[in-house]
């Protein structure tokens, strides 16, 4: 009998790996107002030293109202002020992980009112948590905001599969499959590293991104899950070359 056979009865077990938080980072960056011509955007960025010599996984949240409300990275705050015109691209933060640093970006778009465009400068506050990547080497863990980093009272997410695979998708459509066979739809996280697509899209092809960032921008990428598998669908039909990179996917037990 294994503890993994009775995961739902277990709040914590040292034999079941967790994400291992390596540090948290908070700060802010100011982004100027974009112009008032059609679809104008200003992107600000900040490089945050992590003192961790390798890339790590991460998740972040941001606020543009002084910390009153927080939104996940890769989310835009939909603006319905000027109905029937709905602004879908407004303010958003996203990030990349590189050796020794995070590079965080903040997009600030103007908004169409129906008769013109309005724009404003914003101070983006951010909070980012770093956690270990598969194959993480030696690290010096960084400070976290709260005094206790671990408590056996908490039901930490329990990792079932910690997958890393290098891909080389040819021109055309590809569906890659990661089997989990859990019998239910599990929670997952997915990241892509050294993604060749980033270079042609104004991104950094040497950095690690939340794969959700690319899902949110392009309909040629899909990531979906059922009771048996995790599926990655890539439509590289219009690409001039193969798509390469490394996918990290973490599949969690449901309890």
């Amino acid at each position: 009998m294994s503890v993994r056979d009775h995961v739902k009865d277990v709040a914590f077990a040292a034999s079941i790996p967790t994400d291992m938080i390596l540090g948290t980072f908070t700060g802010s960056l100011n982004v100027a107002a974009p112009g008032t011509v059609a679809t104008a955007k200003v992107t600000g960025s900040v490089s945050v030293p992590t003192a961790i010599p390798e890339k790590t996984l991460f998740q972040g949240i941001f606020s543009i109202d002084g910390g009153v409300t927080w939104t996940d990275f890769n989310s835009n705050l939909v603006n319905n002020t000027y109905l029937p015109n709905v602004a879908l691209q407004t303010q958003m933060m996203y990030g990349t992980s590189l050796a020794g640093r995070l590079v965080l970006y903040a997009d600030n778009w103007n908004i169409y009112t129906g008769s013109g465009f309005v724009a404003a400068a914003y101070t983006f506050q951010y909070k980012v948590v770093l956690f270990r990547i598969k194959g993480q080497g030696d690290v010096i863990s960084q400070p976290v905001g709260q005094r206790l980093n671990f408590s056996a009272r908490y039901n930490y997410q329990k990792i079932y599969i910690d997958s890393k695979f290098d891909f080389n998708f040819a021109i055309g459509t590809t569906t890659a499959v990661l089997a989990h066979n859990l019998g239910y739809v599990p929670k997952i996280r997915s990241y892509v590293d050294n993604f060749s697509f980033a270079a042609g899209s104004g991104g950094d092809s040497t950095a690690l991104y939340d794969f959700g960032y690319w899902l949110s921008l392009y309909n040629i990428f899909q990531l979906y899950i059922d009771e048996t598998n995790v599926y990655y669908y890539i439509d590289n039909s219009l690409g001039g070359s193969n798509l390469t990179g490394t996918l990290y996917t973490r599949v969690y037990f449901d309890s």
Partner: protein
Amino acid sequence: MTLKIGNLQFAGSLGGLANYDSVSFNFTVTSHTLAVGEVHEWRSNWVLDNTDAISTIQISYAELETVYRYCSGALVLNLGTYEIETLTYYKDDLLHIDTFTVNESGGSVTVPEFIVNVRAFLYNAPF
């Protein structure tokens, strides 16, 4: 202190992401016709306070498919003659879901009824 993370299954000094809260809800997008270039919007929200928490969200379009899609901010799904775009964001202690159907064809398109199923999970981070 330097930790050899690669050799560790567990370390008492390194916590994980603690399960904190979750919601599961859905709303119906009724069958409708889109004229050329037309977009329809459908909105829903649910109480979910994400203060000092990070989240993962999964979206399923029932009646069109049986899978759940990993969603980080936005999903764009191309179904040939139309697209379904879903945006997720937190505001005022609510999780907001905005789903749009977009005509991608050169003529009018009838979008069948489907249900937007939302699963959202919050995790405490030691910010």
